[in-house]
């Protein structure tokens, strides 16, 4: 999901930065509030950050013969709402852009939007919806992490298609092309992330019936 440094026209890069910035600022505020009001949340927040650090470092092989990495943002979004993940995801992306030449500063806004905002919001929405529809916590966690991961890669495809529409088939053709690279490769990886997220939620003691659902 990393759009590489310089691979978005300056206007697009700036626009995505302006869209993402308020989410990250609001996420920082909500993180500070959560830490002040619920000191006992510090450890689970650290676990959510750790999970994102591990999963987004793992480039895994997929059936398409390419490899890609999961995002790990679903776990924290389910427990603490998507705001927290905007902050954690940005930290991970900054580390990768500055030290690994993976992603970039000019494309930071776009990458933050796909991995740290869109993915967590989808995961959070799917989690709440699945619980309302009566799914068990384990099933809801799986669906949230799976679809959140996939959403990140669909948004990356959208961002690239907006910036580089196909000469003949326009935006739709370009979207199909980029989604063919990103989203198809991601399907099995997102399923694996969903399964691992369920196991980690369980290990963190968050799958017990007392769990009432995440608070924003």
């Amino acid at each position, binding site marked *: 999901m990393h759009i590489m440094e310089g691979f978005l026209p300056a206007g697009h890069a700036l626009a995505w930065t302006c869209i993402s910035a308020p989410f990250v600022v609001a996420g920082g505020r909500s993180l500070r509030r959560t830490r002040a009001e619920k000191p006992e949340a510090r450890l689970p927040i650290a676990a959510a950050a750790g999970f994102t650090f591990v999963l987004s470092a793992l480039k895994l092989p997929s059936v398409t013969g390419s490899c890609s990495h999961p995002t790990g943002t679903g776990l924290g979004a389910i427990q603490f709402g998507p705001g927290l993940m905007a902050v954690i995801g940005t930290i*991970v992306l900054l580390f990768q852009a500055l030290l690994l030449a993976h992603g970039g500063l000019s494309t930071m806004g776009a990458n933050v939007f796909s991995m740290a905002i869109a993915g967590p919001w989808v995961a959070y929405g799917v989690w709440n919806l699945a619980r309302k529809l009566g799914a068990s916590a384990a099933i809801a966690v799986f669906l949230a992490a799976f679809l959140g991961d996939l959403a990140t890669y669909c948004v990356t495809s959208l961002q690239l298609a907006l910036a*580089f529409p196909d000469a003949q088939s326009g935006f739709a053709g370009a979207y199909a092309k980029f989604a063919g*690279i990103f989203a198809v490769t991601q399907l099995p990886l997102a399923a694996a992330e969903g399964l691992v997220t369920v196991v980690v939620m369980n290990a963190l003691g968050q799958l017990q019936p007392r769990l009432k659902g995440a608070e924003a």
Partner: protein
Amino acid sequence: MSARTNSLLLGLAALIIAAPLILDPKAEFGGTDDAASAVVTATNPGYEKWTGPLWQPAKEMEGLLFALQAAFGAGLLGYVIGRRHGRDGK
């Protein structure tokens, strides 16, 4: 969820990741990020990259930094899970 269910889910996840290596061991497994960049370059010959990375780690150093990122994350996660289980065990 029982320990058995956990192992089953982790095993299934491992199988999903290992399957491509078994089905097509000769595949290149190149990164999708680079594939997308290549498509942009190929279909938009007029586009000029207007900025580049500040610095680029050597191949082996890149592996080191990715491993550090994963190790840091795994350490954090393991610490929290371990603390919880230690507390519950008392």
